[in-house]
């Protein structure tokens, strides 16, 4: 059935409206980063103003942006790689060799995400301290891996379930072992799904603030800790904070644009049957 012209117009308008509503805060943040502090808090808000790069200069002078970017990259990509390496065999086993506990196991894995992080702050802090992992990238990679593992397992499990078990069985009959099945059959078929899972895990790790603020100080502080430094209890700070936030989201935004095709392909995955 072909949708009417008016319906398509309305859907397009709705789509554009939602997209603009979601993009507006980011656009306003970027705009504010080019204002002076006094312009940033003007009432009514200023749409036209004399732009300045002063905030970016100050943010670079006061904070270690390069160090924070490197820490964010190492932590988010490190934890994602480790998470996928751990989750792949688990999802493979549960998708292709399910037993009567598989569903319960999946729900239990997901239930660990339901506990508020602050509930385990003290034990995690003490473990990090006694293992010498406080304020280290290794410690944070371990925490981020564990934090994102349930989501990675669930996403991979969902993607693997879309692949017909017969293909895996056929490869097994041709003499392929478990590793060969994953490498030769599963990876090419579920590639887009694995890529989009990885991208999502990178974004989640990049934006994570609770653990990165609580477990880092000097050496492993990522971009989330870098942003927080520009919030001031007394004194105007919105323009500087916006500049710091713009700098913090810029790398992941560029990364998102570059991998947009894979992300969309992965999320609409399921046409392999």
């Amino acid at each position, binding site marked *: 059935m072909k949708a009417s012209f008016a319906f398509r117009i309305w859907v397009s308008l709705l789509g554009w409206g939602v997209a603009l509503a979601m993009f507006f805060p980011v656009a306003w943040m970027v705009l504010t980063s080019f204002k002076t502090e*006094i312009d940033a*808090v003007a009432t009514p808000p200023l749409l036209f103003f004399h732009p300045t790069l002063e905030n970016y200069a100050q943010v670079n002078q006061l904070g270690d942006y390069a160090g924070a970017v490197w820490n964010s990259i190492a932590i988010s990509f490190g934890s994602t790689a480790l998470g996928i390496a751990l989750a792949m065999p688990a999802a493979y086993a549960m998708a292709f060799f399910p037993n009567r506990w598989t569903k319960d196991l999946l729900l239990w894995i997901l239930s660990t995400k339901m506990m508020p992080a602050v509930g385990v702050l003290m034990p995690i802090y003490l473990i990090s301290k006694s293992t010498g992992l406080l304020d280290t990238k290794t410690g944070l990679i371990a925490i981020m891996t564990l934090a994102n593992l349930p989501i990675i397992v669930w996403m991979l499990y969902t993607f693997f379930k879309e692949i017909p078990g017969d293909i895996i069985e056929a490869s097994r009959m041709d003499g392929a072992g478990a590793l060969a099945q994953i490498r030769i059959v599963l990876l090419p078929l579920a590639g887009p799904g694995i890529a989009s899972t990885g991208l999502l895990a990178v974004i989640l790790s990049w934006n994570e603030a609770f653990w990165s603020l609580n477990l880092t100080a*000097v050496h492993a502080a990522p971009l989330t800790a870098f942003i927080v430094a520009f919030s001031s*209890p*007394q*004194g105007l700070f919105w323009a500087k904070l916006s500049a710091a936030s713009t700098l913090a989201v810029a790398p992941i935004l560029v990364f998102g644009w570059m991998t947009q095709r894979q992300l969309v392909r992965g999320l609409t995955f399921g046409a392999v049957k």
Partner: protein
Amino acid sequence: MRQLTGAALAAFLLAAPCAASATTITIATVNNSDMIVMQKLSAQWEQQTGNKINWVVLEENVLRQRVTTDIATHGGQFDVITIGSYETPIWAKQGWLAPLNEFPASYDYDDLLPQVRSALSVGKTLFAAPFYAESSFTMYRKDLFAQAGLTMPDQPTYAQIEQFADKLTDKSKQQYGICLRGKPGWGENMAYLSTLVNTNGGSWFDMNWKPQLTSAPWETAINFYVDLMKKDGPPGADSNGFNENQALFSTGHCAMWIDSTAAAGKLEDPSQSQVAGKIGFVKAPVAVTTHGASWLWAWSLAVPTTSTHEAAAESFIAWATSKQYVDLVGKTQGWVVAPPGTRTSTYENADYLNAAPFAKAAIAAINSADPNHPTLNPVPYTGVQFVAIPPFQQVGTVVGQDIAGALSGRSTVSAALQSAQDSTTAAMQQAGYLK
């Protein structure tokens, strides 16, 4: 004179206790203009001592949580921490802070303002050295007062403040008679409202730790506040904290603002304020008593007992809170940004007094604030705009939310105070103060 000061500074730095070999210390601090100046100038301390500093700059509440976690678990991540006059006595009594009583003679402990020194000491032992301190006072637009034919007295009453606010409000021009804190939080609206309750003769607790939030002074104070803000305050005042009011006042939207003395330097700075040079400063208003009408707060530097570089940390604090440091800031960054509210000598310095037109009003406010006798009637606690007990952060914030609800019209003042009384009673019972 300059050479003499330089020589004195060098002698002080050499005399300061510092580590025998180069050490790296980690300082946890908040982001404000005084701390940024300290970060800039600390390169001089690093050069003099050969030590290095790692800065960890955090948002105020994050800093508090982060430092508490680290000290409670003996994490040892920080060698110098930035804390306020609320945490200092509580943490010192828990044995979390190292005493700071052995700075060199040149430090001149007696030069610290007595009220500030007392707020940061337990008994006679100093546990945190003040980096800058503040009280609260009334800031008003001299030009608007002159146009309206009004005169601000040196010590206004709240009745006068209401009259002035009524006359100066012109909502068609987005000009509001008064701006006050409304954003909920123990350090936001409750800081101001505690002083308003104090001066109305009220208190947070009686001598048996029974909450007093439904007492007559609280009813009077909060009804006055809500009525005044509805009549003469800016719209959406329940989301305005210090920064939002600074923005409103500096862009010409407020005729009066009762808040921190630390605001004055920012309002008199033409790069941050459109009303610089048009502002008058007088004492905080009073109602029935002067007790607790203006607050006292000191951002300070302390050494946690978990620090592994105590000597270098103390050496840094001795340098960053010294008379010589105030001098260094004045001469290199301008006297108007010299750390206020910490030392008597700062207020005897002609250069500072010339550069800071608000200095006399600020020192008068600080000297009039007495955290040991904050209320008309005796109370079992210290602290003017806070109660120096561990549960207060939670109690103050919940009460702040109730009152912000009354300000926004979501509840009545009576209902808000009853809810505040109930939650405070429950929290005090849980903490063991009440049976």
